[in-house]
């Protein structure tokens, strides 16, 4: 028997003894191990199915309904009675127009300017 065979033989015997030690475990330890295994498997099953429970769906649905109701109530109470800032159709056109907003903001100035421009012209004629 060479060194390699001797080592194989030694390791084979060690493995046999270790297996024997496992087979000879006392019944109490075996029972406790089985109990641990069952609990571990149950915990995995519970964890996976926890999301899909009817209670969870009821809770999520209830929360969504309550949120929706709160939003509807909020908008219903806080919405103004339909009075637009622009009372006349012409004002509405002014407000919605972006291009001439500066012009309309300075409308008084342009009116004043137009009024004053008339005087020199009158002065020239006179």
């Amino acid at each position, binding site marked *: 028997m060479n060194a390699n065979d001797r080592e194989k033989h030694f390791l084979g015997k*060690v493995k046999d*003894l270790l297996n024997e030690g496992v087979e000879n475990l006392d019944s109490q330890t075996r029972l406790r191990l089985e109990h641990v295994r069952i609990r*571990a498997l149950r915990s995995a099953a519970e964890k*996976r199915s926890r999301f*899909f429970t009817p209670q969870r769906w009821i809770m999520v649905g209830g929360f969504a309904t309550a949120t929706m109701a709160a939003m509807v109530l909020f908008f219903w109470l806080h919405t103004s009675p339909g009075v637009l800032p622009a009372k006349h159709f012409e004002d509405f056109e002014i407000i919605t127009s972006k291009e001439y907003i500066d012009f309309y903001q300075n409308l008084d100035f342009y009116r004043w300017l137009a009024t004053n421009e008339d005087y020199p012209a009158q002065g020239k004629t006179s």
Partner: protein
Amino acid sequence: MELTLNSKDTLSRFLADVERRAFKMAKFASRNTDEALDLVQETMFEFVRRYSARPEGEWKVLFYRILQSRMTDWHRRTTVRKRFLAWLGRGDGEEDQEDPLQNFADPASPNPYDQTVRREDMKALEKAVRTLPLRQQQAFLLRAWEGMAVAQAAFAMGCSEGSIKTHYSRAVHALRGLLEDIRS
């Protein structure tokens, strides 16, 4: 993602297959039945939680990876605690006491002498394995007992293949020196 009845059975069979060897490994490391059971429990829970959806072929290595990691953590914690207790002048005294009834041969057995010799061999082996440093112990048990390849053992222990070879070789050398009697 839900565990089907079939996959649950497969998982249960796998755990039933490894649980006793895992317990013995944990007991070699901790030398205490309750601590070993706790280590196996933590390993099983984490394995089922994290890896039960992985392919069955990967389970063994992943299971032992968790167990080795737990045992290493436990060893670190215990070493610190022992140092602290030693500093306070107290021993921890948590090792299991041997059952005296186990030393008696069963007279009903067909060959009580052989049974006694086997039992003595087993005790000598377990004692020798316990004397190994933790990493050598782990490498030896994974390679020689679980039959893992070097790469698998390296993954399970979270170290290089070179380290596994070194630990395993040292462990075999030490055990052969300690177990002269059972070599024959």
